[in-house]
Protein backbone atom coordinates (compact mmCIF):
# COMPACT_ATOMS: atom_id res chain seq x y z
CA UNK A 1 0.00 0.00 0.00
CA UNK A 2 2.74 2.40 1.02
CA UNK A 3 4.55 1.53 -2.10
CA UNK A 4 1.39 2.23 -4.02
CA UNK A 5 0.98 5.59 -2.36
CA UNK A 6 4.52 6.54 -3.18
CA UNK A 7 3.94 5.49 -6.74
CA UNK A 8 0.82 7.59 -6.79
CA UNK A 9 2.72 10.64 -5.56
CA UNK A 10 5.39 10.13 -8.14
CA UNK A 11 2.73 9.81 -10.82
CA UNK A 12 1.05 13.01 -9.66
CA UNK A 13 4.34 14.84 -9.84
CA UNK A 14 5.05 13.49 -13.28
CA UNK A 15 1.55 14.33 -14.40
CA UNK A 16 1.77 17.94 -13.17
CA UNK A 17 5.11 18.38 -14.84
CA UNK A 18 3.64 17.07 -18.04
CA UNK A 19 0.71 19.41 -17.72
CA UNK A 20 2.97 22.36 -17.13
CA UNK A 21 5.21 21.48 -20.01
CA UNK A 22 2.12 20.97 -22.17
CA UNK A 23 0.99 24.47 -21.26
CA UNK A 24 4.32 25.92 -22.15
CA UNK A 25 4.48 24.17 -25.50
CA UNK A 26 0.89 25.06 -26.27
CA UNK A 27 1.88 28.68 -26.57
CA UNK A 28 4.28 27.91 -29.36
CA UNK A 29 2.66 27.18 -32.68
CA UNK A 30 3.16 24.28 -35.03
CA UNK A 31 4.21 21.62 -32.54
CA UNK A 32 2.95 18.11 -33.14
CA UNK A 33 0.65 18.16 -30.13
CA UNK A 34 -0.95 21.43 -31.09
CA UNK A 35 -1.05 21.71 -34.85
CA UNK A 36 -4.64 22.91 -35.15
CA UNK A 37 -5.15 25.35 -38.02
CA UNK A 38 -5.63 28.95 -36.93
CA UNK A 39 -5.97 30.78 -40.24
CA UNK A 40 -9.05 31.89 -42.17
CA UNK A 41 -8.59 30.09 -45.50
CA UNK A 42 -11.41 27.64 -46.36
CA UNK A 43 -13.61 29.12 -43.61
CA UNK A 44 -17.18 30.04 -44.54
CA UNK A 45 -19.67 31.96 -42.42
CA UNK A 46 -23.10 31.08 -41.05
CA UNK A 47 -23.72 34.80 -40.69
CA UNK A 48 -21.52 37.84 -40.59
CA UNK A 49 -18.79 37.19 -38.03
CA UNK A 50 -19.93 33.59 -37.34
CA UNK A 51 -17.38 31.11 -38.76
CA UNK A 52 -18.85 27.74 -39.78
CA UNK A 53 -15.92 25.54 -38.72
CA UNK A 54 -13.38 24.75 -36.04
CA UNK A 55 -10.04 22.96 -36.40
CA UNK A 56 -8.37 20.18 -34.46
CA UNK A 57 -4.85 19.00 -33.69
CA UNK A 58 -3.60 15.69 -35.11
CA UNK A 59 -5.42 12.71 -33.57
CA UNK A 60 -7.22 15.06 -31.17
CA UNK A 61 -10.84 15.97 -30.68
CA UNK A 62 -10.37 18.52 -27.89
CA UNK A 63 -11.48 22.06 -28.62
CA UNK A 64 -8.85 24.77 -28.75
CA UNK A 65 -9.40 28.23 -27.25
CA UNK A 66 -10.05 29.58 -30.74
CA UNK A 67 -12.52 26.75 -31.45
CA UNK A 68 -14.45 27.49 -28.29
CA UNK A 69 -14.68 31.18 -29.22
CA UNK A 70 -16.03 30.22 -32.66
CA UNK A 71 -18.56 27.81 -31.17
CA UNK A 72 -19.78 30.45 -28.71
CA UNK A 73 -20.47 32.71 -31.69
CA UNK A 74 -22.36 29.84 -33.33
CA UNK A 75 -24.35 29.32 -30.13
CA UNK A 76 -25.30 32.99 -30.01
CA UNK A 77 -26.31 32.82 -33.66
CA UNK A 78 -28.41 29.70 -33.06
CA UNK A 79 -30.12 31.26 -30.06
CA UNK A 80 -31.16 34.17 -32.25
CA UNK A 81 -32.39 31.85 -35.00
CA UNK A 82 -34.55 29.49 -32.97
CA UNK A 83 -36.07 27.63 -35.92
CA UNK A 84 -32.73 26.83 -37.49
CA UNK A 85 -31.37 23.28 -37.22
CA UNK A 86 -27.81 22.30 -38.07
CA UNK A 87 -25.71 19.28 -38.91
CA UNK A 88 -22.15 19.16 -37.65
CA UNK A 89 -19.86 17.34 -40.05
CA UNK A 90 -16.74 15.82 -38.51
CA UNK A 91 -13.64 15.32 -40.64
CA UNK A 92 -10.12 13.92 -40.36
CA UNK A 93 -6.96 14.32 -42.41
CA UNK A 94 -5.62 11.65 -44.76
CA UNK A 95 -2.85 10.54 -42.38
CA UNK A 96 -4.81 7.87 -40.56
CA UNK A 97 -6.54 4.59 -41.28
CA UNK A 98 -9.97 4.96 -42.82
CA UNK A 99 -11.98 3.29 -40.08
CA UNK A 100 -10.30 5.04 -37.19
CA UNK A 101 -10.80 8.35 -39.00
CA UNK A 102 -14.54 7.72 -39.26
CA UNK A 103 -14.65 7.36 -35.48
CA UNK A 104 -12.39 10.37 -34.98
CA UNK A 105 -14.60 12.55 -37.21
CA UNK A 106 -17.61 11.48 -35.20
CA UNK A 107 -15.83 12.33 -31.95
CA UNK A 108 -14.84 15.76 -33.27
CA UNK A 109 -18.38 16.56 -34.44
CA UNK A 110 -19.70 15.55 -31.02
CA UNK A 111 -17.14 17.68 -29.22
CA UNK A 112 -18.52 20.68 -31.11
CA UNK A 113 -22.12 19.59 -30.49
CA UNK A 114 -21.51 19.13 -26.76
CA UNK A 115 -20.04 22.61 -26.52
CA UNK A 116 -23.02 24.17 -28.30
CA UNK A 117 -25.31 22.31 -25.91
CA UNK A 118 -23.51 23.67 -22.85
CA UNK A 119 -24.31 27.10 -24.29
CA UNK A 120 -27.99 26.31 -24.27
CA UNK A 121 -28.62 24.91 -27.75
CA UNK A 122 -30.94 21.90 -27.67
CA UNK A 123 -29.32 18.66 -28.82
CA UNK A 124 -32.45 18.05 -30.91
CA UNK A 125 -31.43 20.90 -33.20
CA UNK A 126 -27.97 19.47 -33.85
CA UNK A 127 -27.34 16.27 -35.77
CA UNK A 128 -23.85 14.97 -36.43
CA UNK A 129 -22.29 13.03 -39.29
CA UNK A 130 -18.73 11.88 -39.72
CA UNK A 131 -17.06 11.76 -43.10
CA UNK A 132 -13.73 10.58 -41.76
CA UNK A 133 -11.08 11.46 -44.34
CA UNK A 134 -13.49 11.13 -47.27
CA UNK A 135 -14.14 14.81 -47.93
CA UNK A 136 -10.96 16.85 -47.71
CA UNK A 137 -11.44 20.59 -48.26
CA UNK A 138 -7.81 20.94 -49.30
CA UNK A 139 -6.60 18.14 -51.59
CA UNK A 140 -2.88 18.74 -51.11
CA UNK A 141 -0.66 16.35 -49.15
CA UNK A 142 0.92 19.01 -46.94
CA UNK A 143 0.79 19.74 -43.21
CA UNK A 144 -1.19 22.92 -44.00
CA UNK A 145 -3.80 20.97 -45.99
CA UNK A 146 -4.03 18.31 -43.29
CA UNK A 147 -4.61 20.97 -40.63
CA UNK A 148 -7.40 22.52 -42.72
CA UNK A 149 -8.98 19.11 -43.18
CA UNK A 150 -9.06 18.25 -39.46
CA UNK A 151 -12.28 20.12 -38.82
CA UNK A 152 -15.88 20.11 -37.82
CA UNK A 153 -18.23 22.16 -39.96
CA UNK A 154 -21.62 23.42 -38.83
CA UNK A 155 -24.06 23.33 -41.74
CA UNK A 156 -27.60 24.76 -41.82
CA UNK A 157 -30.18 22.11 -42.69
CA UNK A 158 -33.27 24.30 -43.06
Amino acid at each position, binding site marked *: MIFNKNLKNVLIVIFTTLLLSACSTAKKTGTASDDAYTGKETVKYLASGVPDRVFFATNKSSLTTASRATLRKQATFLRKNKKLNVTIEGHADERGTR*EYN*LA*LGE*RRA*NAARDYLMTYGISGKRISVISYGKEKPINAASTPLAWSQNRRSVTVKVN
Partner: protein
Amino acid sequence: MKKIIIIILFNFFTIIKSYALIEVDITRGNLDPLPLAVSPLHVDIKSEDYKDMKIKELGNNISEIIENNFRATGLFNPLKKEAFVQKPDIAHLKPRFEDWRLIKAQALITGKILIKDEKLKVEFRLWDLAAAKEMTALAFTTTPSNWRRVAHIISDKIYERLTGEEGYFDTRIIYVAESGPKNQRVKKLAIMDQDGAKTKYLTLGNELVLTPRFNPTNQMVTYMSYFRNMPRVYLLDIETGTQEVVGNFPGMTFAPRFSPDGKKIIMSFAKDGNSDIFTMEIETRVVERITDHSSIDTSPSFSPDGKFIAFNSDRSGLQQIYVMRSDGSGVKRITFGNGIYGTPVWSPRGDLIAFTKMRKGKFYIGVMRTDGTGERLLTENFYQEAPSWSPNGRVIVFYRETKAGLKGEGFTAKLWTIDITGYNERQLKTKTDASDPSWSSLLSK
Protein backbone atom coordinates in the same frame (compact mmCIF):
# COMPACT_ATOMS: atom_id res chain seq x y z
CA MET B 1 -18.06 -30.62 -61.00
CA LYS B 2 -17.03 -30.74 -57.38
CA LYS B 3 -17.63 -34.48 -57.25
CA ILE B 4 -15.56 -35.16 -60.33
CA ILE B 5 -12.65 -33.20 -58.92
CA ILE B 6 -12.74 -35.04 -55.65
CA ILE B 7 -12.89 -38.49 -57.22
CA ILE B 8 -10.12 -37.89 -59.72
CA LEU B 9 -7.89 -36.08 -57.30
CA PHE B 10 -8.20 -38.93 -54.89
CA ASN B 11 -7.05 -41.41 -57.50
CA PHE B 12 -4.05 -39.50 -58.69
CA PHE B 13 -2.88 -38.01 -55.44
CA THR B 14 -2.78 -41.24 -53.52
CA ILE B 15 -0.73 -42.99 -56.17
CA ILE B 16 1.65 -40.25 -57.11
CA LYS B 17 2.51 -38.37 -53.98
CA SER B 18 5.31 -40.69 -52.89
CA TYR B 19 7.26 -40.13 -56.13
CA ALA B 20 7.46 -36.36 -55.89
CA LEU B 21 10.95 -35.02 -56.40
CA ILE B 22 10.27 -31.37 -57.15
CA GLU B 23 9.86 -29.30 -54.08
CA VAL B 24 9.21 -25.59 -53.94
CA ASP B 25 10.59 -23.93 -50.87
CA ILE B 26 7.97 -21.32 -50.10
CA THR B 27 9.50 -20.03 -46.92
CA ARG B 28 12.15 -17.96 -48.65
CA GLY B 29 10.22 -15.90 -51.15
CA ASN B 30 11.32 -15.46 -54.73
CA LEU B 31 15.06 -15.93 -54.47
CA ASP B 32 15.14 -18.93 -56.74
CA PRO B 33 11.86 -19.29 -58.65
CA LEU B 34 11.22 -22.71 -60.13
CA PRO B 35 11.39 -22.80 -63.96
CA LEU B 36 8.12 -24.12 -65.25
CA ALA B 37 6.82 -24.78 -68.79
CA VAL B 38 3.10 -24.31 -69.41
CA SER B 39 2.31 -25.88 -72.75
CA PRO B 40 -0.74 -24.41 -74.49
CA LEU B 41 -3.67 -26.72 -73.92
CA HIS B 42 -4.42 -28.79 -76.98
CA VAL B 43 -7.80 -28.00 -78.50
CA ASP B 44 -9.46 -31.18 -79.68
CA ILE B 45 -10.40 -30.89 -83.37
CA LYS B 46 -13.79 -32.40 -82.61
CA SER B 47 -14.63 -29.26 -80.64
CA GLU B 48 -17.88 -27.55 -81.60
CA ASP B 49 -18.59 -23.85 -81.82
CA TYR B 50 -19.96 -22.25 -78.70
CA LYS B 51 -21.59 -18.84 -78.94
CA ASP B 52 -18.98 -16.32 -80.07
CA MET B 53 -16.07 -17.98 -78.29
CA LYS B 54 -12.82 -18.27 -80.20
CA ILE B 55 -12.27 -21.91 -79.45
CA LYS B 56 -9.00 -22.24 -81.36
CA GLU B 57 -7.39 -19.68 -79.08
CA LEU B 58 -8.82 -21.13 -75.91
CA GLY B 59 -5.90 -23.50 -75.25
CA ASN B 60 -3.45 -20.62 -75.50
CA ASN B 61 -5.60 -18.30 -73.42
CA ILE B 62 -5.96 -20.79 -70.59
CA SER B 63 -2.24 -21.50 -70.51
CA GLU B 64 -1.52 -17.76 -70.44
CA ILE B 65 -3.71 -17.29 -67.37
CA ILE B 66 -1.94 -20.19 -65.66
CA GLU B 67 1.44 -18.64 -66.51
CA ASN B 68 0.40 -15.25 -65.16
CA ASN B 69 -0.86 -16.82 -61.95
CA PHE B 70 2.42 -18.62 -61.40
CA ARG B 71 4.56 -15.62 -62.32
CA ALA B 72 2.63 -13.47 -59.83
CA THR B 73 3.47 -15.83 -56.96
CA GLY B 74 7.14 -15.00 -57.30
CA LEU B 75 7.84 -18.67 -56.60
CA PHE B 76 7.78 -19.83 -60.21
CA ASN B 77 9.35 -18.72 -63.45
CA PRO B 78 7.13 -19.67 -66.41
CA LEU B 79 9.38 -20.14 -69.44
CA LYS B 80 8.89 -18.49 -72.84
CA LYS B 81 6.81 -20.55 -75.24
CA GLU B 82 9.11 -19.89 -78.22
CA ALA B 83 11.57 -22.31 -76.74
CA PHE B 84 9.01 -25.11 -76.44
CA VAL B 85 10.01 -28.17 -78.41
CA GLN B 86 6.93 -30.34 -78.49
CA LYS B 87 3.44 -29.83 -79.85
CA PRO B 88 0.76 -29.55 -77.15
CA ASP B 89 -1.12 -32.73 -78.13
CA ILE B 90 1.96 -34.92 -78.20
CA ALA B 91 3.41 -33.43 -75.03
CA HIS B 92 0.14 -34.10 -73.28
CA LEU B 93 0.24 -37.80 -74.15
CA LYS B 94 3.84 -38.33 -73.14
CA PRO B 95 6.44 -35.57 -73.09
CA ARG B 96 10.01 -36.17 -74.29
CA PHE B 97 11.44 -35.33 -70.90
CA GLU B 98 15.01 -34.77 -72.10
CA ASP B 99 13.82 -32.13 -74.60
CA TRP B 100 12.02 -30.16 -71.90
CA ARG B 101 14.97 -30.48 -69.54
CA LEU B 102 17.09 -28.92 -72.26
CA ILE B 103 15.24 -25.60 -71.87
CA LYS B 104 15.87 -25.84 -68.12
CA ALA B 105 12.25 -26.54 -67.19
CA GLN B 106 11.77 -28.54 -64.03
CA ALA B 107 8.03 -28.98 -64.30
CA LEU B 108 5.72 -29.16 -67.29
CA ILE B 109 1.98 -28.55 -67.48
CA THR B 110 0.07 -30.00 -70.42
CA GLY B 111 -3.63 -30.24 -71.15
CA LYS B 112 -6.43 -30.87 -73.57
CA ILE B 113 -9.83 -29.25 -74.04
CA LEU B 114 -12.91 -30.31 -75.91
CA ILE B 115 -16.16 -28.41 -76.36
CA LYS B 116 -19.04 -30.72 -77.05
CA ASP B 117 -22.79 -30.48 -76.34
CA GLU B 118 -22.24 -27.00 -74.92
CA LYS B 119 -19.86 -28.39 -72.30
CA LEU B 120 -16.19 -27.70 -71.86
CA LYS B 121 -14.19 -30.80 -71.05
CA VAL B 122 -10.75 -30.14 -69.66
CA GLU B 123 -7.93 -32.38 -68.62
CA PHE B 124 -4.44 -31.48 -67.57
CA ARG B 125 -1.28 -33.15 -66.32
CA LEU B 126 1.65 -31.95 -64.30
CA TRP B 127 4.98 -33.60 -65.10
CA ASP B 128 8.11 -33.80 -63.00
CA LEU B 129 10.77 -33.48 -65.68
CA ALA B 130 13.76 -34.50 -63.58
CA ALA B 131 12.09 -37.68 -62.42
CA ALA B 132 10.39 -38.19 -65.80
CA LYS B 133 7.06 -38.82 -64.11
CA GLU B 134 3.51 -37.58 -64.05
CA MET B 135 2.88 -35.83 -60.73
CA THR B 136 -0.80 -35.19 -60.94
CA ALA B 137 -3.64 -35.20 -63.41
CA LEU B 138 -7.19 -34.03 -63.33
CA ALA B 139 -10.20 -33.90 -65.63
CA PHE B 140 -13.42 -32.00 -65.25
CA THR B 141 -16.37 -30.60 -67.13
CA THR B 142 -17.97 -27.18 -66.92
CA THR B 143 -19.82 -24.63 -69.05
CA PRO B 144 -17.54 -23.08 -71.71
CA SER B 145 -18.10 -19.54 -70.40
CA ASN B 146 -16.32 -20.65 -67.24
CA TRP B 147 -13.02 -21.04 -69.10
CA ARG B 148 -11.18 -18.47 -67.00
CA ARG B 149 -12.13 -20.27 -63.83
CA VAL B 150 -10.87 -23.48 -65.42
CA ALA B 151 -7.46 -21.85 -65.76
CA HIS B 152 -7.55 -20.74 -62.11
CA ILE B 153 -8.68 -24.15 -60.84
CA ILE B 154 -5.85 -25.83 -62.77
CA SER B 155 -3.44 -23.27 -61.29
CA ASP B 156 -4.69 -24.03 -57.78
CA LYS B 157 -4.30 -27.79 -58.19
CA ILE B 158 -0.77 -27.45 -59.52
CA TYR B 159 0.20 -24.92 -56.88
CA GLU B 160 -1.06 -27.27 -54.19
CA ARG B 161 0.85 -30.18 -55.66
CA LEU B 162 4.11 -28.24 -55.92
CA THR B 163 4.03 -26.25 -52.68
CA GLY B 164 1.97 -28.43 -50.37
CA GLU B 165 -0.24 -25.43 -49.62
CA GLU B 166 -3.73 -24.57 -50.76
CA GLY B 167 -3.89 -22.33 -53.83
CA TYR B 168 -5.58 -18.93 -54.06
CA PHE B 169 -6.18 -18.38 -57.77
CA ASP B 170 -9.84 -19.28 -58.10
CA THR B 171 -10.77 -16.30 -55.96
CA ARG B 172 -12.08 -12.78 -56.36
CA ILE B 173 -11.28 -9.44 -54.84
CA ILE B 174 -13.92 -6.91 -53.92
CA TYR B 175 -12.76 -3.31 -53.60
CA VAL B 176 -13.76 0.33 -53.90
CA ALA B 177 -13.25 1.74 -57.39
CA GLU B 178 -12.34 5.42 -57.24
CA SER B 179 -12.51 8.20 -59.82
CA GLY B 180 -12.56 11.98 -59.96
CA PRO B 181 -10.47 14.64 -58.23
CA LYS B 182 -9.19 13.92 -54.73
CA ASN B 183 -11.65 16.22 -52.95
CA GLN B 184 -14.64 15.03 -55.01
CA ARG B 185 -14.00 11.30 -55.23
CA VAL B 186 -16.69 9.07 -56.70
CA LYS B 187 -16.58 5.61 -55.14
CA LYS B 188 -18.23 2.41 -56.34
CA LEU B 189 -18.10 -1.15 -55.16
CA ALA B 190 -16.26 -3.29 -57.69
CA ILE B 191 -15.40 -6.96 -57.92
CA MET B 192 -12.86 -8.73 -60.09
CA ASP B 193 -10.99 -12.00 -60.38
CA GLN B 194 -7.78 -12.06 -58.32
CA ASP B 195 -5.76 -11.57 -61.54
CA GLY B 196 -7.65 -8.35 -62.36
CA ALA B 197 -9.93 -9.82 -65.03
CA LYS B 198 -13.74 -9.58 -65.21
CA THR B 199 -14.22 -6.30 -63.36
CA LYS B 200 -17.83 -5.68 -62.44
CA TYR B 201 -19.28 -2.65 -60.66
CA LEU B 202 -21.84 -3.36 -57.97
CA THR B 203 -22.96 0.18 -57.16
CA LEU B 204 -23.45 3.23 -59.37
CA GLY B 205 -21.41 5.77 -57.42
CA ASN B 206 -24.38 7.86 -56.28
CA GLU B 207 -23.39 7.47 -52.64
CA LEU B 208 -20.11 7.04 -50.84
CA VAL B 209 -19.24 3.38 -50.20
CA LEU B 210 -16.35 2.06 -48.10
CA THR B 211 -14.67 -1.08 -46.74
CA PRO B 212 -16.39 -4.02 -48.50
CA ARG B 213 -15.54 -7.42 -46.97
CA PHE B 214 -16.31 -10.93 -48.15
CA ASN B 215 -18.11 -13.51 -46.11
CA PRO B 216 -15.54 -16.34 -45.85
CA THR B 217 -18.24 -18.98 -46.39
CA ASN B 218 -20.25 -17.62 -49.32
CA GLN B 219 -20.59 -14.76 -51.79
CA MET B 220 -22.12 -12.27 -49.39
CA VAL B 221 -20.43 -8.96 -48.78
CA THR B 222 -20.69 -6.46 -45.96
CA TYR B 223 -19.73 -2.84 -46.51
CA MET B 224 -20.43 0.69 -45.39
CA SER B 225 -22.59 3.09 -47.38
CA TYR B 226 -23.69 6.70 -47.00
CA PHE B 227 -27.01 5.92 -48.70
CA ARG B 228 -29.44 8.79 -47.89
CA ASN B 229 -26.57 10.41 -46.02
CA MET B 230 -26.89 7.85 -43.23
CA PRO B 231 -23.56 6.08 -42.77
CA ARG B 232 -24.48 2.48 -42.03
CA VAL B 233 -23.22 -1.06 -42.49
CA TYR B 234 -24.95 -2.99 -45.26
CA LEU B 235 -25.19 -6.61 -46.28
CA LEU B 236 -25.07 -7.37 -50.00
CA ASP B 237 -25.70 -10.60 -51.89
CA ILE B 238 -23.48 -10.35 -54.97
CA GLU B 239 -25.42 -12.99 -56.86
CA THR B 240 -28.87 -11.43 -56.47
CA GLY B 241 -27.89 -7.81 -55.88
CA THR B 242 -30.21 -7.55 -52.86
CA GLN B 243 -28.95 -5.44 -49.98
CA GLU B 244 -30.12 -4.37 -46.57
CA VAL B 245 -29.01 -2.33 -43.58
CA VAL B 246 -27.40 -4.34 -40.79
CA GLY B 247 -29.15 -3.78 -37.48
CA ASN B 248 -31.21 -0.84 -36.33
CA PHE B 249 -28.65 1.49 -34.82
CA PRO B 250 -29.48 5.14 -34.12
CA GLY B 251 -26.12 6.34 -35.47
CA MET B 252 -23.14 5.51 -37.63
CA THR B 253 -22.12 1.86 -37.96
CA PHE B 254 -18.82 1.11 -39.69
CA ALA B 255 -15.78 -1.17 -39.96
CA PRO B 256 -17.81 -4.34 -40.65
CA ARG B 257 -16.35 -7.82 -41.03
CA PHE B 258 -17.82 -11.33 -40.94
CA SER B 259 -17.18 -13.91 -38.28
CA PRO B 260 -15.26 -16.94 -39.64
CA ASP B 261 -18.45 -19.05 -39.76
CA GLY B 262 -20.09 -16.27 -41.77
CA LYS B 263 -23.04 -16.07 -39.36
CA LYS B 264 -22.26 -12.79 -37.62
CA ILE B 265 -21.14 -9.34 -38.62
CA ILE B 266 -18.80 -7.57 -36.24
CA MET B 267 -18.60 -3.79 -36.53
CA SER B 268 -18.31 -0.50 -34.70
CA PHE B 269 -21.21 1.68 -33.67
CA ALA B 270 -20.53 5.35 -32.91
CA LYS B 271 -22.71 7.22 -30.45
CA ASP B 272 -22.11 10.61 -28.83
CA GLY B 273 -18.48 10.61 -29.87
CA ASN B 274 -17.72 7.11 -28.61
CA SER B 275 -17.21 4.05 -30.84
CA ASP B 276 -17.64 0.55 -29.46
CA ILE B 277 -17.67 -2.91 -31.02
CA PHE B 278 -20.87 -4.90 -31.56
CA THR B 279 -21.86 -8.10 -33.31
CA MET B 280 -25.10 -8.93 -35.05
CA GLU B 281 -26.17 -12.46 -35.87
CA ILE B 282 -27.42 -12.30 -39.44
CA GLU B 283 -30.24 -14.82 -39.14
CA THR B 284 -31.71 -13.84 -35.78
CA ARG B 285 -30.73 -10.12 -35.88
CA VAL B 286 -29.58 -10.44 -32.28
CA VAL B 287 -27.20 -7.60 -31.46
CA GLU B 288 -24.54 -8.02 -28.81
CA ARG B 289 -22.26 -5.40 -27.33
CA ILE B 290 -18.64 -6.57 -27.20
CA THR B 291 -16.69 -3.55 -25.89
CA ASP B 292 -17.81 -0.78 -23.56
CA HIS B 293 -15.12 1.83 -23.24
CA SER B 294 -15.01 5.60 -23.60
CA SER B 295 -12.26 5.32 -26.23
CA ILE B 296 -12.52 4.60 -29.95
CA ASP B 297 -12.71 0.82 -30.44
CA THR B 298 -12.81 -0.16 -34.09
CA SER B 299 -11.45 -2.31 -36.96
CA PRO B 300 -12.42 -5.62 -35.28
CA SER B 301 -11.33 -8.93 -36.81
CA PHE B 302 -12.09 -12.45 -35.58
CA SER B 303 -9.49 -15.19 -35.25
CA PRO B 304 -10.26 -18.04 -37.69
CA ASP B 305 -11.45 -20.29 -34.84
CA GLY B 306 -13.88 -17.55 -33.75
CA LYS B 307 -12.55 -17.53 -30.18
CA PHE B 308 -10.74 -14.18 -30.24
CA ILE B 309 -11.13 -10.71 -31.68
CA ALA B 310 -8.33 -8.31 -32.57
CA PHE B 311 -9.23 -4.61 -32.77
CA ASN B 312 -7.64 -1.20 -32.49
CA SER B 313 -8.35 1.26 -29.72
CA ASP B 314 -6.96 4.57 -28.53
CA ARG B 315 -7.72 3.77 -24.87
CA SER B 316 -4.02 4.17 -24.05
CA GLY B 317 -3.72 7.47 -25.94
CA LEU B 318 -2.95 6.69 -29.56
CA GLN B 319 -4.22 3.77 -31.67
CA GLN B 320 -2.86 0.38 -30.57
CA ILE B 321 -3.88 -3.20 -31.28
CA TYR B 322 -5.69 -5.26 -28.66
CA VAL B 323 -6.88 -8.84 -28.50
CA MET B 324 -9.84 -10.08 -26.44
CA ARG B 325 -12.02 -13.16 -26.17
CA SER B 326 -14.99 -13.13 -28.53
CA ASP B 327 -17.34 -12.20 -25.66
CA GLY B 328 -15.28 -9.07 -24.98
CA SER B 329 -13.52 -10.36 -21.87
CA GLY B 330 -9.78 -10.55 -21.29
CA VAL B 331 -8.77 -7.44 -23.27
CA LYS B 332 -5.01 -7.37 -23.75
CA ARG B 333 -2.88 -4.83 -25.56
CA ILE B 334 -0.42 -6.54 -27.93
CA THR B 335 1.45 -3.66 -29.62
CA PHE B 336 4.07 -1.73 -27.69
CA GLY B 337 6.46 -0.74 -30.47
CA ASN B 338 7.22 2.84 -31.46
CA GLY B 339 4.37 4.14 -33.53
CA ILE B 340 0.62 3.93 -34.01
CA TYR B 341 -1.00 0.62 -34.95
CA GLY B 342 -4.28 -0.04 -36.71
CA THR B 343 -6.38 -2.38 -38.87
CA PRO B 344 -5.46 -5.74 -37.35
CA VAL B 345 -6.55 -8.63 -39.59
CA TRP B 346 -6.19 -12.20 -38.44
CA SER B 347 -4.55 -14.58 -40.92
CA PRO B 348 -6.80 -17.42 -42.14
CA ARG B 349 -4.13 -19.78 -40.81
CA GLY B 350 -4.53 -18.21 -37.37
CA ASP B 351 -0.84 -17.72 -36.64
CA LEU B 352 -0.35 -14.08 -37.68
CA ILE B 353 -2.06 -10.71 -37.53
CA ALA B 354 -1.53 -8.26 -40.38
CA PHE B 355 -1.66 -4.57 -39.50
CA THR B 356 -0.97 -0.99 -40.55
CA LYS B 357 1.69 0.90 -38.65
CA MET B 358 2.26 4.64 -38.71
CA ARG B 359 5.55 6.06 -37.61
CA LYS B 360 7.42 9.29 -38.35
CA GLY B 361 5.23 10.18 -41.32
CA LYS B 362 5.50 6.74 -42.96
CA PHE B 363 2.98 3.94 -43.26
CA TYR B 364 3.88 0.27 -43.04
CA ILE B 365 2.09 -3.00 -43.68
CA GLY B 366 3.37 -5.66 -41.33
CA VAL B 367 2.66 -8.98 -39.70
CA MET B 368 3.16 -10.13 -36.12
CA ARG B 369 2.31 -13.15 -34.04
CA THR B 370 -1.05 -13.00 -32.32
CA ASP B 371 0.55 -12.06 -29.00
CA GLY B 372 2.27 -9.08 -30.64
CA THR B 373 5.73 -10.60 -30.77
CA GLY B 374 7.80 -11.17 -33.90
CA GLU B 375 6.75 -7.96 -35.65
CA ARG B 376 7.92 -7.86 -39.28
CA LEU B 377 7.33 -4.79 -41.44
CA LEU B 378 6.83 -5.89 -45.05
CA THR B 379 6.59 -2.58 -46.88
CA GLU B 380 7.07 1.13 -46.21
CA ASN B 381 5.42 3.99 -48.09
CA PHE B 382 3.87 7.45 -47.94
CA TYR B 383 0.42 6.02 -47.32
CA GLN B 384 -0.88 2.45 -47.30
CA GLU B 385 -3.32 0.48 -45.21
CA ALA B 386 -6.16 -2.07 -45.15
CA PRO B 387 -4.39 -5.44 -45.43
CA SER B 388 -6.50 -8.43 -46.49
CA TRP B 389 -5.25 -12.02 -46.64
CA SER B 390 -5.31 -14.47 -49.53
CA PRO B 391 -7.35 -17.48 -48.35
CA ASN B 392 -4.20 -19.56 -47.83
CA GLY B 393 -2.55 -16.88 -45.66
CA ARG B 394 0.36 -16.52 -48.06
CA VAL B 395 -0.21 -13.11 -49.70
CA ILE B 396 -1.54 -9.79 -48.44
CA VAL B 397 -3.42 -7.31 -50.60
CA PHE B 398 -3.63 -3.68 -49.47
CA TYR B 399 -4.03 -0.21 -50.99
CA ARG B 400 -1.49 2.54 -51.37
CA GLU B 401 -2.03 6.24 -52.02
CA THR B 402 0.50 8.64 -53.45
CA LYS B 403 1.37 12.07 -52.15
CA ALA B 404 -0.72 14.73 -53.89
CA GLY B 405 0.54 18.05 -55.22
CA LEU B 406 -0.70 21.44 -53.99
CA LYS B 407 -3.94 21.17 -55.97
CA GLY B 408 -4.39 17.46 -55.33
CA GLU B 409 -2.74 16.54 -58.63
CA GLY B 410 -0.75 13.34 -58.94
CA PHE B 411 -2.93 11.58 -56.42
CA THR B 412 -3.52 7.88 -57.08
CA ALA B 413 -4.87 4.96 -55.08
CA LYS B 414 -3.88 1.46 -56.19
CA LEU B 415 -4.04 -2.11 -54.96
CA TRP B 416 -0.80 -3.94 -54.20
CA THR B 417 0.06 -7.44 -53.11
CA ILE B 418 3.03 -8.67 -51.13
CA ASP B 419 4.15 -12.09 -49.97
CA ILE B 420 4.30 -12.54 -46.18
CA THR B 421 8.05 -13.03 -46.60
CA GLY B 422 8.19 -9.36 -47.65
CA TYR B 423 9.23 -10.33 -51.18
CA ASN B 424 7.37 -10.04 -54.43
CA GLU B 425 5.57 -6.71 -54.05
CA ARG B 426 3.33 -6.16 -57.07
CA GLN B 427 0.71 -3.72 -58.20
CA LEU B 428 -2.59 -5.41 -58.91
CA LYS B 429 -3.94 -3.94 -62.13
CA THR B 430 -7.38 -2.38 -61.77
CA LYS B 431 -9.46 -0.51 -64.35
CA THR B 432 -9.69 2.57 -62.12
CA ASP B 433 -8.04 3.78 -58.94
CA ALA B 434 -8.83 1.39 -56.13
CA SER B 435 -8.86 1.02 -52.34
CA ASP B 436 -10.18 -1.15 -49.50
CA PRO B 437 -9.54 -4.59 -51.05
CA SER B 438 -10.98 -7.78 -49.58
CA TRP B 439 -9.94 -11.22 -50.80
CA SER B 440 -12.60 -13.95 -51.15
CA SER B 441 -12.29 -17.59 -50.14
CA LEU B 442 -11.63 -20.21 -52.81
CA LEU B 443 -14.73 -20.32 -55.00
CA SER B 444 -14.41 -24.01 -55.82
CA LYS B 445 -13.87 -25.18 -52.30
